[in-house]
């Protein structure tokens, strides 16, 4: 019972921080739900790197603490400092978690894909072909040379 009392007092002391965290969380998961809607901007669905969450997720995770801290700093609104702190606590844990999960997913996918054993490269003109020959037609052949000049 003493522990429950202590937890209750802890929550009431940090109510603003908890509200800041919950607000940030709802913004983040609201963005995840909105991702499947037709009006969602395609730029926000893209990723800067396969190891990073989508641009929209990054914005939704970083924006709430950044905006709240800007309001606190620029507007000298000390009353919402608790909200900003709570948003930072949620934001730091969330962004770390999301980047780690997306990195592990990307690594798992890279291992699961079969390695390319042979990647055909673009054929380049041999240095033995006269430089003034603008257009040449070639035909595949076997042996040392891969192509034979036909005209």
């Amino acid at each position, binding site marked *: 019972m003493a522990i429950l009392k202590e937890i209750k007092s802890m929550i009431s002391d940090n109510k603003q921080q908890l509200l800041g965290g*919950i607000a940030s969380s709802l913004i983040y998961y609201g963005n995840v739900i909105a991702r499947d809607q037709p009006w969602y901007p395609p730029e926000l669905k893209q990723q800067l790197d396969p190891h990073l969450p989508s641009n929209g997720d990054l914005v939704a995770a970083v924006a709430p603490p950044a905006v709240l801290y800007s309001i606190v700093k620029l507007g000298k609104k000390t009353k919402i400092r608790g909200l900003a702190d709570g948003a*930072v606590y*949620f934001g730091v844990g*969330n962004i770390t*978690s999301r980047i*780690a999960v997306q990195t592990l997913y*990307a690594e798992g996918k890279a291992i699961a894909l079969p390695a390319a054993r042979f990647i055909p490269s673009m054929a380049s003109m041999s240095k033995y072909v006269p430089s003034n020959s603008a257009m040449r037609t070639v035909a595949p052949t076997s042996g040392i040379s891969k192509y034979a000049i036909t005209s």
Partner: protein
Amino acid sequence: MVEKNTLIGALVTGIADAALEGYYAYMDAQGKPLRGQFPYLLIPGAEFIPPLDDWIACAGVPALLYAMGKFMKKPALKSMAKGGAIYGISTLIGVTAMQASYQLQGRYTPPQARYTYIVR
């Protein structure tokens, strides 16, 4: 001002959450989904409630930090538990809202609603 220990607590809880979800995502990417296996378990009939792995990370880790702080008499650990609790409670509320929204829209069957934030 952001307290260092509280921030560390939120980070530790986030890492624990990432470890459990990251293993799921890694196996999912390899074509071996762990859906329905421990600790990725949902309550049948109430699939909007976050699965067990979220409860372990988001409620278990802050509770563990708090218990350690209480019995070892270290206020720093209690402060870390506070950060973990802010992250954990916020995440659990957010995940519940997300899964309830999916369930109400009927867009996904609930197990597929897990980890929709992963860009596949």
